[in-house]
């Protein structure tokens, strides 16, 4: 049952930050799809709930030069309606994640920033933001600061947000059109479910093996989303032959040690499935795949 709390509806960012910094047991509310569940389950004690939806200037989603700026009030549905997410192959990873996110009702409520702010290791937008190397714009009582998303995540449910700080926006660099990206996950049912594990892929200069850079991040395999730099190196700068793919898959599986208590997937299954998702993702992004032919053709 939902425990009673006081509800605040500030109009400006500073007002919101001030409330957040001073009120006892305060929590910001965007879509409320994580917060209200936690309050109901008794997992979060919130005596003061500060609604961000009326705060001026928090914005939804817009393009700013070669960045996509995802404001604190941008819902999953808003993101799915953003032109860039469909036109830019490097942002397809955001679309893929949105499509499998919750259900229609949840997508209308839930925000992308709330998803990241919640810092859940398996949440849909963790690993995509890691491969996109997004920046988090934080607004607090002491002003504004910008940090890389990788520094934002501190552990399961823990983030770099200080007292009163608000995740004002996510700034996502838009990769050149030669990039490709994808998001894949395993869940127990096809309908609404939380991911057992997920994998985001961004391939820069996708069609030129020699220049190609592969970035990948996984969710729900550690306390935060994680990149796999060695595997990225293995897959970058040369054609991805079956041998290299198998090597990469092996390294990816070996490199993770998920906790054994998850109800959604066992460590054994996660280890096997990250490898599978990697192959399925590359298969989706590269043509032909694997690239034996290219390997033969190169000097």
């Amino acid at each position, binding site marked *: *049952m939902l*425990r*009673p709390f006081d509800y605040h509806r500030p109009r400006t960012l500073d007002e919101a930050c001030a409330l957040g910094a001073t009120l006892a047991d305060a929590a910001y509310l965007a879509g409320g799809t994580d917060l209200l569940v936690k309050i109901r389950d008794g997992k979060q004690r919130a005596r003061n709930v500060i609604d961000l939806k009326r705060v001026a200037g928090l914005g939804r989603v817009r393009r700013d030069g070669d960045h996509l700026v995802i404001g604190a009030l941008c819902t999953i549905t808003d993101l799915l309606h953003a032109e860039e997410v469909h036109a830019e192959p490097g942002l397809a990873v955001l679309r893929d994640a949105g499509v499998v996110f919750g259900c229609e009702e949840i997508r209308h409520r839930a925000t992308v920033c709330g998803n990241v702010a919640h810092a859940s290791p398996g949440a849909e937008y963790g690993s995509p933001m890691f491969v996109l190397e997004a920046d988090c714009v934080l607004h607090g009582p002491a002003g504004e600061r910008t940090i890389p998303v990788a520094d934002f995540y501190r552990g399961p449910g823990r983030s770099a947000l200080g007292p009163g700080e608000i995740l004002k926006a996510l700034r996502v660099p838009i990769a050149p059109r030669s990039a490709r990206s994808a998001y894949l996950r*395993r869940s*127990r*049912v*096809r*309908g*609404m*479910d*939380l991911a*057992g594990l997920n994998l985001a892929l961004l391939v820069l200069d996708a069609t030129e093996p020699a220049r190609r850079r592969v970035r990948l991040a996984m969710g729900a395999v550690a306390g935060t989303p994680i990149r796999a730099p060695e595997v990225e190196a293995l897959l970058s700068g040369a054609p991805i032959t079956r041998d290299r793919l198998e090597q990469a898959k092996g390294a990816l599986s070996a490199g993770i040690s998920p906790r054994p208590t998850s*109800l*959604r*997937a*066992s460590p*054994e*299954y996660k280890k*096997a*499935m990250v490898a*599978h998702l990697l192959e*399925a993702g590359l*298969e*989706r992004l590269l043509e032909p795949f694997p690239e034996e032919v290219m390997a033969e053709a190169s000097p």
Partner: protein
Amino acid sequence: MEQRCIGTSVPRVDALEKVTGEARYVADLSFPGMLHAKLLRSPHAHARIVRIEKAAAAAMPGVHAVATGKDLPWWVGECIRDQRPMAVETARFAGEPVAAVVASSEDAALAALEAIRVDYEPLPAVLDARAALAPGAPLVHPDLGTYHVLPGFRPSPGTNVFHHYFVKAGDVTKGLARAAVVVEQEYEFPHLMHTALENHGCLARYTAGGRLEVHAGAQSPFTVRNVVAEAFGLPRHRVSVRGGYLGGGFGGKSDATVEPLTCALARLCPGRWVRLILDREESFVGSVLGRGFRGRYRYGLTRRGRLVAADIDLLMAGGAYSWTAVNILPCAGHNGIGPYFVPDLEIHARGLYTNTPPVGAYRGYGHPDSQFMAERHMDLCARAVGMDPVAFRLKNLLGKSGKKNPLGQRVDSSAGDLEGCIKLVAQDIGMATSPEGIRAREAEPSAVSRPAVAVGRGLACLMKSPGQATNAFTTVVLKFNEDGTVHVISAVSEMGQGVHTAIAQIAADLIEIPVEKVYVPQGTDTDYSPYDWQTVASRATWMQGRAIAAAWEKARKELRATAAKAFGVPVAKVDYRRGTLFVRGDESRALPLEKVCHGYVFPDGHAVGGPVLVAGHYVPHATYADEQTGRGELATSWTFGCQGAEVEVDLRTGEVTVLRFSSAIDVGRAVNPELAKAQVIGAVVFGLGGALTETVTWGPRGEIRNASMTDYKVPTPEDVRGIDFRVHLLETPVPGDPVGSRCLAEHGAVAVAPAIANAVADATGVDFFDVPLAAERVFLALQARAAQAPSPKPPRKAKGAR
């Protein structure tokens, strides 16, 4: 009677009310001065309650009563009275209520709960059936010998066995010794949760005059009345239970669960309504669970594939209290071989107390539990003798030959055309017919190279009889109105299955009036409604049909008597057809129904006869099991059928995709074919949950780890919309029955799990002996097999592998 409305798909009578939100459920009810109850539950599977400190909670604002088990000194239970409304001295499962607060608001009640302190002394717990059976196992009920037990049930004091059903025919030892081939295997069907859309709830009030009034979200208002009346020692007429629409039951609301406790709490606050509504997470521990069966199957066969002996041992982990789990055992037992003839057999089904939440009725009531095992075993046996699974089943079929089932009942072709069902299903899924040319899908060009998948097919037969008390009466009242319309009043609960629509159709045809002239009032009130035992066991349409026929016989007699007076002729000369009473041989002398059914008024104003109000009842002939053989009239109606699946297994992830699911069931007569088909598909989807994704996940201390919709995975529309569902309703007439319908409701869920598991085995060569076949489990099994055989044969029928 001419069937005009029966057999047509008239729209549901409750559709408008439900889609407009007008329909009200128990949680919608509110009364002035109503109080709210909240429960504190034991975190331990088994513990002595050392001390409960409740004074602080009692002093909190808005709190009317704080109760512990000791304050509610009554006994409840349907077959074995083994439970208190709340734990007294010992908590027997994690989640058992140990204290309750009744307060002016839910918030106040919750706040007070937090102020209650309970000291426990944990005791050794038994968490599964085998542990419960082991010699020296901790006893869940050391006082079992002192409990009140209904006839027909056999608890064994000094053990955890609360009932042992067995049935014997021939000599199984000799039969097995003679068999050329013996196939033995263990199986398991773990615990499941119903997850009805509507959670459990109850409102109760103890009136100043000493009556108990109850609003229950119950499948069986009369059973609730009887359980609470007996618990409190109240005469039946001092208890009234009202039931309305249910947001799904699936068996989970057929037992009295939250009702006795709510009533007990209401006794502490006389004059006030006390409301207890469980939330989703509580429903997992605060109502009943389903299934929880293990079984060991040992069959003897001839080399040519004839079954000669069956030795079956079933164990149910029944939870801490027996409820009607007791009754599941005979159903699981005598149905445990499926619709096949075996001359020498012995089947044992034992129910064990365990320190887990109680098990109760769950769509299928024992039948899917043991038939999962039986139908998996049939495939194993077919393989052992090198026979095709369809041919093997047809060879051993019970029906056609008129042979005897385990109960000793002769089953012949009038019981249904099972062979026809099997053939239809086999054809649908491409078994036994030519394997090529089945799948246009295979020819479809795929844009991306397809992941490695394996396709397989499997089928399983089903049979089901209603599992009910020997005196499980149903009653109906026909109340004729001034204009010739009719109220058909019955206490069966409309929980989404469409029974009120079927009742209206049957009444319309029997009375020979248009269905628009029939009204089936929604809701039951034990003060006014005619008795019905329970809306369970797929029985309501079948039983009500016969009761309506009996009632109509009486009504007709009364109408003819009144008309005879009006016509001035002997009764024998009056006949009735299609809403008209007439003098036989002189049909110009006729009166419409409405001129007679509320008495006849002569031209001078004087009246004869009266408003017609009649009751009809029905109960089939049933007996207890014979003490020596376990045989007897335990099954009073049979429905047979077959289900089959074509599945695709993704070898890279283990994911099982159902491509096609076919069901063929001999229903006798489909009263409303569209509703019947919807019922079958709904049941199949329900069954797919248990077969593929649903299971209660236990923690090491007997706690349910996935007691929420987040982690108890029920299939969603996304999971089933791609499935090609086929439903065949066969209609072999039921001899001597006015309506001709057989039981149909749970049946669509009975053979789903074995059909899927048989299909997965066909696709991958990996045998599963339990469910669910979740992607992860399938994948790990495939891997384990690959590790065993260093150079495995490629899976049968693999395609697209690179």
